[in-house]
């Protein structure tokens, strides 16, 4: 064993996480584990972690991602069936065991105790060479033909920004791209860095909320716990957004806050840091970008609707919440920046509600209508709204589009609760947090 490999074994395990359906916040759990580094591209990873149920239509994409990892690499499977072609796949179903399992896998790979996983697909271009003409470059004149499946420049679309028509670049993103909701695949047309068109080709997997929201539909639950779960949900979204906004320090801070969340937690410090660092002034899209009109906001519901000035919140129909003096918090603008602020407002509100509810030991009075962090759940529950992206994202610059996407919770809500044992850590965190 060379000293180089022994040294390499001490490096953090670089993990590309493919999030599939029906899995809780695995990313958020792993992000704080020492010795694990989550990466945004399979090329930077040594471990592919597949977590959750993979529907049949998504398995081929996963194979393609699997083969993009540079050797030596291995895959770890959490709550899903590994590919048959893998000889000795690592399966870890208990989320608590994941961090250690992943780190151990990396170590074994580096120390040569485990062979690199085999490639599953033949190494050839997904599309054949279809260049036309004398030199294989195109059809008539300089253009035409579709070499490697990509049409040559023949752009006649008008530019949406300043009339300077550039050639359109069309590509597919997803379904396991780390900046998109899990499962979403989109066909994106860019002119320069401006999104020209955004077509959702595959819908995202239904999102899950913490089991307590499902419990609240069955019987009355302590408001303090419900509100802490809501705050945690928003903090997790804030974490993903801040990571995307290129501010890992603050992203981590949001996550640490979520981890130790209790009724006495304070989000004011985080808000102050975000303001001072210039998140709204420098990093987020300018006011007026990524605006949802009233119909769209109403359809989407939840925080996005309240950020657009619609004061719809099922909590105001609950007698116990009324006792706490609950009134929905709203913002007027309805743009991306407002939705980011709305997160902070709602976290703050949830924490103060949780504090007061814990004092009086209040429970919810209503079970027919529950406001989940994703949106209202009464007779209907939040459905998939990913087609909305095709209306909101065009005309935004790439970075703005992704930060807008991060601010929108478009996946449907999974009506079935996750098995309670999926992560015992939740219960523990709550017990520690409450006074």
């Amino acid at each position, binding site marked *: 064993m060379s000293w180089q490999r022994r040294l390499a074994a001490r490096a953090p395990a670089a993990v590309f996480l493919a999030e599939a359906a029906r899995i809780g916040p695995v990313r958020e759990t792993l992000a704080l584990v020492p010795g694990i580094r989550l990466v945004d591209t399979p090329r930077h990873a040594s471990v592919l972690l597949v977590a959750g149920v993979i529907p049949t239509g998504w398995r081929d994409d996963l194979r393609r991602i699997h083969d993009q990892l540079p050797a030596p690499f291995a895959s770890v499977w959490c709550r899903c069936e590994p590919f048959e072609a893998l000889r000795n796949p690592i399966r870890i179903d208990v989320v608590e065991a994941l961090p250690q399992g992943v780190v151990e896998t990396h170590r074994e790979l580096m120390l040569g105790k485990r062979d690199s996983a085999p490639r599953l697909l033949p190494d050839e271009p997904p599309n054949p060479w279809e*260049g036309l*003409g*004398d*030199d*294989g*470059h*195109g059809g008539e004149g*300089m253009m035409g033909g579709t*070499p*490697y499946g*990509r*049409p*040559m*420049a023949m752009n006649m679309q008008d530019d949406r*920004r*300043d*009339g*300077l028509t*550039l*050639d359109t*670049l069309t*590509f597919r993103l997803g379904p396991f791209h780390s900046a998109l909701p899990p499962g979403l695949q989109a066909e994106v047309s860019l002119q*320069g860095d401006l999104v020209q068109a955004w077509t959702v080709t595959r819908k995202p997997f239904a999102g899950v909320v913490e089991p307590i929201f499902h419990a609240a539909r069955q019987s009355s639950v302590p408001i303090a716990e419900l509100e802490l779960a809501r705050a945690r949900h928003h903090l997790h979204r804030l974490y993903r957004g801040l990571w995307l906004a290129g501010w890992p320090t603050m992203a981590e801070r949001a996550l640490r806050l979520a981890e130790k969340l209790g009724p006495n937690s304070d989000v004011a410090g985080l808000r102050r840091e975000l303001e001072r660092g210039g998140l709204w002034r420098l990093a987020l899209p300018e006011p007026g970008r990524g605006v949802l009109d009233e119909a769209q906001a109403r359809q989407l519901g939840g925080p996005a609707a309240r950020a657009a000035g619609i004061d719809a919140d099922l909590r105001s129909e609950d007698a116990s919440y009324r006792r706490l003096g609950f009134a929905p918090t709203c913002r007027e603008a309805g743009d991306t920046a407002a939705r980011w602020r709305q997160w902070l407002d709602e976290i703050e509100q949830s924490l103060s509600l949780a504090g007061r509810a814990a004092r009086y030991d209040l429970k919810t009075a209503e079970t027919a209508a529950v406001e989940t962090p994703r949106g209202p759940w009464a007779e209907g529950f939040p459905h998939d709204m990913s087609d909305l992206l095709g209306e909101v994202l065009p005309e935004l610059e790439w970075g703005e589009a992704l930060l807008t996407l991060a601010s929108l919770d478009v996946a449907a809500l999974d009506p079935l609760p996750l098995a309670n044992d999926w992560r015992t850590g939740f219960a523990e965190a709550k017990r520690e947090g409450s006074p």
Partner: protein
Amino acid sequence: MTPSLATHIAFVVLAALAVLSGWRVFCTDSMVRASFFLLLSFIAVGGIMILLTAEYLGVAMFFMMAVEMMVMALFMVMFMMNPAGLNPMKMVHQERVAIVAGVAVFGVLSAVAVLGDFPDMPLPAEHAPVISLGRELLGDSMLVFETAGVVLLTTMVGVVVLSSRRGRYGRADEGSVPPGLEPGGEPAGRPKESEEEKGEEGGHAHQHHH
């Protein structure tokens, strides 16, 4: 002062690099590659200039050509970004004319080099290229350089203004019309249009935009 052996070797290597990469410009099938081969050729020429003790000109050559070729390549990728400008394209056209012109120009230039009668005056030892360049730029030729500079700047601003859709009175394709002197009045500062021109308002606005 006779150049050292190292200088000779450096010259031969740089000259070969300049010619080779210059030749590759015409063999490659991508505009981006072509412009960067050209950049390589220029960098080699800049190196030769440094060997000729024209230090400033040599280094300035790196600088100017890097930015120039970069901007050129960027525009090519922007307008031909299919994808990444890596799909092959035919880069040479009208070969016969080009070959004839190339051979003719090469003949003329080499004739000048071989047959020309160059002055044979060694440079004074204290000669500083930067200082003399500065004197030239801000001395007798100042008017020429400044005029050229201002004209270029005006052209750039003009092109940006003309190609932009955003106009002073709104977007060009939505009929950029100056506001009236009183609210709702006739557009200010415009000659009265005849009835027939008014009928073609849409087409009119469209022309602005091109």
